[in-house]
C-alpha cells in the first residue's frame, strides 16, 4: 500500500475541485443551517427589533400557548382530514390509471392519453385556482352540468361554502397529479418479464387474473415506497393550494397548519409563536417518515435510506 501523502499536499493537488465544492457547502450552511439555528426563537420572546442573542428566553411557553389555541387545533384537524382524503383517493388513483393504460393495446391512443394526463402537473396552482373559480362559479361549468342532469335545482357557490372545501382541495389535487403519478408505475410495469404473462396464458389465467397475480405483485416494491412517502407527508399541507383556494368565508375548513404558520408569522409578525408551531409539526413529520421507513424495512427488507 502506498502511504498517504500529507494532508496539505493532497489538498493542493485538488485545489480546483475544492473551489468547485466550497460554494455548495457555504450555500447549505447559510440557507439551510442558519435557519435551523434560527429555530431557537421558538423558545424566546423574539420581536422584529430584537437580536436572537439578546431575546428573552421563555422556555416552552410558546408551545403551551399554541397547544391551548383552538385555532391551532382547527388547522391540525383540517390538515389531517385533507391529507387523509388525498391519501385515500390520490394514492390508488394513479395505480388504477396505470393498470388501465398498461392493458390498453391501442398504442397511439395510449400515448395521447399520457400526454394529456401529464399536462395538469405543469399548471401552477395560481392557474388551477383561477380555473376552479371559473368552473365552480354559480354560472360555471359544474353547476350547469349538474343542473342539466337534474342533480341540483339552484346553482351552488361551492368555493364560499365551507362544507365543500375538503372535497375541492382533495379532488383538485388528484385531478392535477393523477396522470403524472402514473409515470413511475408504468415504468415498473414495462420492466415485467413478458414470459410471465405467456406462462399464465398457457395456464389459462384470464386478463384480470394476470393483473392481480402478475402485474400488481411485480410493482409491490414501488407501491410500498410511494406509500411511505405519502404517509410521511400527512402533516404537510399544500401551501400553494391553500393560499389560492382560501376565502374568508371558507376559512373554517380551509385553514391548514402551513397557512396558519404563514399568517401568524409573515403577516402578523408573531415570529416566536409561528416558529414553535412550525417546529412542532416538522418534528412530528420527521418522526412519521422514520417510523414508516422502519415499518417498510421490516416488511420488505428494503428502505428508502
Amino acid at each position, binding site marked *: 500500500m502506498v502511504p498517504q501523502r500529507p494532508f496539505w499536499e493532497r489538498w493542493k493537488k485538488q485545489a480546483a*475541485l475544492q473551489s468547485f465544492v466550497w*460554494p455548495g457547502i457555504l450555500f*447549505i450552511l447559510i*440557507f*439551510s443551517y442558519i435557519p435551523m439555528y434560527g*429555530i431557537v426563537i421558538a423558545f424566546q420572546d423574539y420581536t422584529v427589533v430584537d437580536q436572537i442573542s439578546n431575546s428573552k428566553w421563555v422556555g416552552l411557553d410558546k408551545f403551551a400557548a399554541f397547544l391551548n389555541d383552538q385555532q391551532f387545533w382547527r388547522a391540525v384537524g383540517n390538515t389531517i382530514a385533507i391529507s387523509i382524503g388525498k391519501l385515500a383517493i390520490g394514492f390508488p388513483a394513479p395505480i388504477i390509471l396505470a393498470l388501465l393504460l398498461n392493458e390498453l393495446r391501442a398504442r397511439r391512443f395510449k400515448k395521447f392519453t399520457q400526454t394529456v394526463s401529464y399536462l395538469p402537473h*405543469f399548471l401552477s396552482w395560481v392557474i388551477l385556482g383561477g380555473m376552479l373559480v371559473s368552473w365552480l362559479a354559480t*354560472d360555471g361549468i359544474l353547476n350547469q352540468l349538474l343542473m342539466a342532469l337534474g342533480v341540483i335545482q339552484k346553482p351552488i357557490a361551492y368555493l364560499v361554502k365551507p362544507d365543500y372545501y375538503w372535497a375541492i382541495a382533495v379532488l383538485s389535487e388528484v385531478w392535477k397529479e393523477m396522470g403524472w403519478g402514473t409515470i413511475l408505475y408504468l415504468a415498473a410495469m414495462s420492466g415485467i418479464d413478458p414470459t410471465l404473462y405467456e406462462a399464465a396464458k398457457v395456464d389459462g389465467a384470464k386478463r384480470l387474473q394476470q393483473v392481480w397475480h402478475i402485474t400488481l405483485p411485480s410493482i409491490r416494491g414501488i407501491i410500498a415506497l410511494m406509500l411511505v412517502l405519502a404517509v410521511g407527508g400527512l402533516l404537510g399541507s399544500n401551501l400553494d393550494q391553500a393560499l389560492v383556494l382560501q376565502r374568508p368565508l371558507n376559512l373554517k375548513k380551509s385553514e391548514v397548519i402551513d397557512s396558519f404558520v404563514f399568517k401568524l408569522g409573515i403577516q402578523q409578525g408573531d415570529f416566536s409563536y409561528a416558529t414553535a408551531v412550525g417546529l412542532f409539526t416538522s418534528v412530528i413529520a420527521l418522526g412519521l417518515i422514520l417510523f414508516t421507513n422502519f415499518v417498510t424495512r421490516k416488511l420488505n427488507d428494503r428502505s428508502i435510506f
Partner: protein
Amino acid sequence: MRKNYGERVFQAFLWLLVGFFSLLVLLPVWNIVVLSLNDANDAAKGGVTLWPRAFSLENYKVVFQYPQIFNSFWISISKTFLGVTTHVLFCSMVAYAMSKKHLMGRQWFIRLGIVTMFFGGGLIPSFLLMKSLGLLDNYLIYIIPAVFSFYDMIILMNFFREIPDSLEESAAIDGASTYYIFWRIILPLSMPVLATIALFNGVGQWNDYMTAKIYINNPDLHPVQMFLYKIIVQEEASKLNHAASVIVMPTTARSLQLATMVITTAPIVMVYPFLQKYFVKGMMVGSVKG
C-alpha cells in the same frame, strides 16, 4: 374465436374508461380557453361551454393594454432565464467535484446535505434570514436562494460518475486544467441530464408565486404568477378593468382573469409536448437516486 371476441370487448371497455379520463382533463381546460375568447357580458349569462357563442378578442386586447402585465412578464421571463442558468451551472460545478471519490471532505458534505432533505428551519427562520441578508423586496430573492439544490446535485453527481475516467485522464495528460475539463468535456457530454434539470427548474421558476407572496411587496417586482394571484384571489381585476375602459365595459373581472391565465400558461403548454420525453426521463432519474 370466442376468446378474441372477449378481448375486443375488454379493449373497448378500456378505451371508454381511458377516453373518459382524457375528457375529464381536457374539457375543463378547453372550457377556460373558450370562455376567454367569448364576449364577457355574453359569457356572464352562462351557457358557454365548448364553443364561443359570441367570439371576441376584447379580453386579450384589454389585458395587453395594462402596463403592469408587460412588466410582470418581463420579471417572469428574466428570472426564469437567469435562475435556470445559474442553478444548472452552480449545481453541476458542485456535482462534478462531488463525483470524484478522492475529494477530501466528500462524505462530510453528503451527510451535511442529507440532513437538510429531512429537516429544515421552516418558514419563519428562513424569512428572518432573507430579511437579514437584505433580500426582502429584492429581485435577487428569485435567484440566490434557488441557485443550489442538494437533490439536483445528487442527480447530476450520479450522471457525472458514469462518464469514463479515461476521457478526463487523457485530457489531463495533454495539460488540460480542471476548469477546462469541466467546461469542454464534462458539460457537453451531459446535455441530456442538464436539459432535464433545466426544464424542471424552469417550470418551477415560471410557476412560482410563493416567493413573491412571502418576500416581495413591491408590485413592480412581481412575476406574472403573482400578478395573477392578486387578480384572482384579491380581486384586483376590477381595478384592471377600470384602467382599461372609461364608458362601456366590454370586459368583466372574470373574463380578464381568464385571458391572463391563458396567456400565462400558453408558453408551458406550447413547449411541453415536445419536451415530454425529457420530463419523463427526469422523473425516472430522480426516482433512482442513491
